[in-house]
């Protein structure tokens, strides 16, 4: 048990918790991070360069032999999902923050783009984001390192899109294209999502927590699964109770304030588990909104071969994964639904050839057909913005506990009419763009799939209909914050992590000011 009383206890060490604690520690604030999983050495923990033929079952395990971590829903490891993410980084726009006001659907955030801009600036300067300033109203430009050039296959798609009046732009990622003093630039090995072992791609340990450890103000408690946020009878968060992941021994970390940053679903689960006499429906849940308004992104998918590349020699183009993007365009057009979609494409790694199953025939002609199509294969992954509905929520499973003896979180997602219309349209447009570029369509997925998890502790100015305020402070408990994707009141179609990091920087400012004023 830690005898020290920290200024801030942060639960979770991913992009949110890592950014937030580093910002606080750099200001001389004493921070404890309590992380359920093990410490991870990015250089040696992952099978970054693994090939399928190195493994009898042809499945490349995430971790190298004998290294634990990243195998559990509840506790992945220091760095959380930032270890294995694709690093796509967009600024959200006014249309994203004010969905209800602009589109009559969903919810407005209790803040707008000008409130967030300084924090996007700060994050981009700190961690390095590469991209091209495209001057799009709906996709604010940032402070960018040089973008990665588009692949030939991207240019073919771009030409096809432009024939339809659509733009294809460079992707923006929290991956260095120019080295800094402490992190090298990307070397285009194509293993981003297997764990970047040089930390050219942002992860919250190498980019934020490791430098912050040098201040002496940051302690990381790893393998410590938080089972409860402790709240006093005076309605103040006093710290957290945790289980040691291996010994199951109980421990406590005490602090003047607590930040829950376990990632969307697990943050909701922790607050539900922390119910008490004061909060019978879950901690900080007097609104009844905890777990509700769960709005994960939904994706579609189209697999195709670009006809111009069929029969061409194989190329080394998987480095950095996807280089280009189709930003939202439908929001400017007449349509029978609200909100929008955008498309990631051409992010596939070429050591995975599962699509060979779907090429017709067998024998010599089949083998030749697969070989000819190998350099031409690409996937379109459109992302749609889900609207909140009453049938979609996160709660605790009343009858199942997980391997740590804690109630398992449950997700319930039911897509509404608007969501289904977006799905149909984004699939249709993906096929149109590909056909315009010249493509043989292989597969069009007919069901949406969930992706980035968002919502459940939504942000709002009214304590009766939201869980946290515009600074991520819970309405109910004055020294309890929630900072991660769970606070999004609307989902946008844009990848969320860059915004989560900006929210963390903004919450860190708020926490720091209040600590200085001795309010906590």
């Amino acid at each position, binding site marked *: 048990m830690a005898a020290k009383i920290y200024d801030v206890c942060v639960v979770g060490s991913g992009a949110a918790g890592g950014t937030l604690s580093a910002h606080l520690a750099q200001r001389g604030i004493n921070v404890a991070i309590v992380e359920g999983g093990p410490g991870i050495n990015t250089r040696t923990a992952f099978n*970054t360069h693994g090939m399928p033929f190195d493994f009898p079952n042809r499945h490349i395990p995430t971790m190298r032999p004998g290294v634990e971590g990243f195998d559990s829903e509840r506790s992945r490891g220091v760095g959380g999902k930032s270890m294995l993410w694709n690093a796509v980084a967009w600024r959200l726009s006014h249309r994203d923050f004010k969905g209800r006001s602009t589109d009559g659907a969903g919810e407005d955030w209790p803040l707008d783009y000008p409130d967030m801009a300084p924090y996007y600036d700060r994050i981009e300067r700190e961690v390095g984001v590469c991209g091209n300033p495209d001057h799009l109203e709906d996709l604010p430009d940032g402070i960018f390192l040089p973008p990665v050039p588009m692949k030939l296959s991207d240019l073919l798609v771009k030409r096809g899109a432009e024939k339809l009046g659509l733009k294809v732009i460079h992707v923006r990622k929290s991956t260095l294209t120019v*080295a800094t003093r402490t992190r090298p630039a990307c070397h285009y090995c194509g293993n981003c999502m297997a764990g970047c072992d040089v930390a050219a791609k942002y992860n919250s340990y190498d980019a934020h927590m490791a430098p912050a450890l040098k201040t002496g103000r940051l302690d990381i408690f790893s393998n410590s699964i938080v089972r409860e946020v402790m709240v006093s009878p005076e309605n103040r968060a006093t710290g957290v109770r945790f289980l040691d992941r291996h010994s199951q021994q109980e421990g406590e970390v005490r602090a003047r304030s607590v930040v829950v940053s376990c990632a969307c679903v697990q943050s909701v689960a922790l607050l539900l588990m922390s119910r008490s006499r004061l909060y019978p429906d879950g901690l900080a849940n007097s609104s009844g909104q905890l777990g509700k308004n769960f709005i994960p992104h939904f994706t579609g998918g189209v697999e195709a071969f670009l006809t111009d590349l069929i029969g061409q020699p194989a190329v080394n183009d998987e480095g950095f994964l996807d280089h280009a993007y189709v930003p939202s365009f439908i929001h400017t057009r007449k349509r029978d639904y609200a909100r929008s979609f955008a498309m990631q494409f051409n992010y596939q790694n070429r050591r995975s050839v599962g699509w060979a199953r779907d090429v*017709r025939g067998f*024998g010599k002609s089949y083998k*030749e057909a*697969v070989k000819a199509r*190998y350099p031409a294969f690409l996937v379109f992954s459109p992302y749609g913005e889900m609207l909140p509905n009453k049938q979609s929520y996160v709660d605790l499973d009343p009858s199942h506990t997980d391997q740590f003896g804690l109630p398992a979180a449950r997700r319930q997602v039911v897509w509404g009419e608007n969501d289904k219309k977006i799905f149909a349209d984004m699939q249709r447009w993906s096929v149109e763009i590909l056909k315009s570029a010249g493509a043989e369509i292989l597969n069009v997925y007919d069901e949406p799939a969930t992706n980035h998890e968002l919502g459940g502790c939504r942000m709002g100015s009214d304590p009766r209909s939201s869980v946290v305020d515009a600074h991520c402070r819970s309405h109910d408990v004055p020294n309890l914050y929630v900072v991660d994707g769970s606070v999004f009141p609307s989902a946008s179609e844009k990848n969320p992590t860059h915004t989560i990091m900006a929210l963390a920087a903004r919450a860190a400012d708020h926490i720091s000011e209040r600590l200085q004023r001795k309010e906590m």
Partner: protein
Amino acid sequence: MESRRSALKIIGAIGATCAFPFGADELYGQQAGHLHHAAPAQAATGPYQPKFFSASEMHTLSKLADSIIPPTGTPGAAAAGAPQYIDLVASTSEERGKDCREGLIWLDAHSGKLYGKPFSELTEDQQIEILSPLSDASDRSDWEQPGVKFFHEMKNLTADGYYTSRIGLVQELGYQGNTVLDHFPVSTLPEH
């Protein structure tokens, strides 16, 4: 395409600001096998001991796999170890193992009815004659006819096993990735 030598030279050049943290060999020392530019000789370990199939079933599987992905300019599915991969998959699930085994029995019975021989003793043309209608029906998702689902499953497993092997992925398809580049080359569309 960057040659291996120029790719390794690049590692020295990165370092004006942050020195590239690995020496050339160390970067790939984690998984030395991925240096795929020259396929290494397989260490001799003795004949494969099947986990599920009998020796005779493995023999039929090899013939079937080679019908699906034959040796051409590059080795076929049998040489690439696809039958061993299928054996592993069959051994991990009672239902899958049972389906595979029953399918092989059906295949030999069907072959016996048509040509009086088991599948493994047929000529290449006879094998193609048996498999073609199964493949066509499989492409149409016509699961009713006997043998169609089995063929579909065998094709999937053979493709999986082949295209995740060094022979399939590197030698046949020409996989180029998992290397080091100091910059990503600029592409331009060819003028038409």
